[in-house]
């Protein structure tokens, strides 16, 4: 495959995601509360053919979550993410769908199939992108991840839902949480282990705190924590101000 994707600023990616949400709203139903209907956006608005299949066996790779075929207008998600069979993977399933939507919106115009490219095997064309969990994030994958976060957790929707959930726009501050230890223990129990080091522990405590909010958006607590940190709605320490 051949792809020369230009650098895209985060605000450009965010605008593209907002545009897709607005287009969906015009053609189907305006999205006024979470979760963002990503299945509908993929199948009913973008009209992409959608499959759940054993991608690990198909590509002989153990860490594949999704793939996209531009020419065939097709995306696929690995069977391990089937939310019907594995409800705990629902967040990852949504993120993978949104990630593939990102490739579709951001990258398909830059993608060309090299001459003479062969099929994987009989009648099974090579995908444009295979999306894996453990590989180093190349720019196209980073951009698609960024798009997915913006699409599933758009600023306005997060802000209004946060206001309703918390009764205001006050952030959650890690250093001010009185029950950090208990939250950490609870999160460790839930995960059966976790990240080490003060930074990793901080992540887990915050993810434990925002999990109910992440559930509203049907995304993982980790994805939501990262997004909320960006918006300043969760923080490690209180920002110093002139009045402190």
């Amino acid at each position: 495959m051949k792809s020369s994707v230009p650098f895209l600023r985060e605000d450009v990616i965010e605008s593209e995601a907002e545009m897709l949400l607005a287009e969906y709203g015009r053609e189907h139903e305006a999205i006024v509360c979470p979760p963002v209907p990503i299945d509908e956006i993929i199948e009913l608005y973008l009209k992409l053919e959608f499959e759940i299949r054993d991608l690990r066996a198909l590509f002989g790779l153990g860490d594949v979550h999704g793939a996209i075929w531009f020419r065939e207008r097709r995306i696929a998600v690995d069977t391990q993410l089937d939310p019907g069979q594995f409800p705990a993977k629902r967040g990852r399933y949504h993120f993978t769908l949104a990630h593939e939507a990102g490739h579709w919106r951001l990258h398909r115009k830059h993608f060309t199939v090299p001459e003479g490219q062969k099929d994987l095997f009989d009648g099974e064309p090579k995908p444009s992108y295979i999306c894996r969990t453990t590989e180093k994030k190349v720019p196209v994958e980073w951009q698609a991840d960024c798009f997915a976060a913006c699409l599933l957790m758009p600023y306005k929707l997060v802000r209004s839902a946060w206001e309703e959930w918390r009764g205001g726009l006050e952030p959650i501050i890690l250093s001010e949480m009185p029950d950090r230890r208990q939250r950490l223990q609870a999160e460790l129990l839930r995960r059966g282990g976790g990240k080490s080091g003060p930074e990793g522990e901080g992540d887990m405590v915050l993810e434990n705190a925002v999990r109910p909010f992440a559930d509203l958006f049907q995304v993982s607590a980790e994805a939501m924590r990262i997004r909320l940190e960006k918006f300043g709605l969760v923080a490690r320490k209180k920002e110093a101000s002139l009045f402190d």
Partner: protein
Amino acid sequence: MSKKPKPFGQVLRERRVERGYTLRKFAELMELSPTYLSQVEQGNVDPPTAERVHKMADLLGASADEWTALAGRVPEDLPGIIQKEPTAMPELLREASGLTAEQLRALREKARQMKAQGKPGAEGGDV
């Protein structure tokens, strides 16, 4: 010569999307796993049972008989009908095989009339 019909899975997927159901939503309605439904649509597994195909067609406003045939299944009431008349019914079907759609329609209409006439009380038979 008639065109080769589309595979059942493809017809199902196209109709489902046309009717505004996502794979996940339709799987939920059918009480199936999304993976299984997707496999059916991809043609990687045998089509579902006649009963399920019937339910799918009903939910999507399609002809149950047409979809059952497309899925390579036999409508669930047919085996019983044949077993009731094990010689005459297969003979009738063999004779009817090869007739045009219009001829079949006429034959069906005739059968309907015969049944109505044969029914007790249908033609002033009340005593």
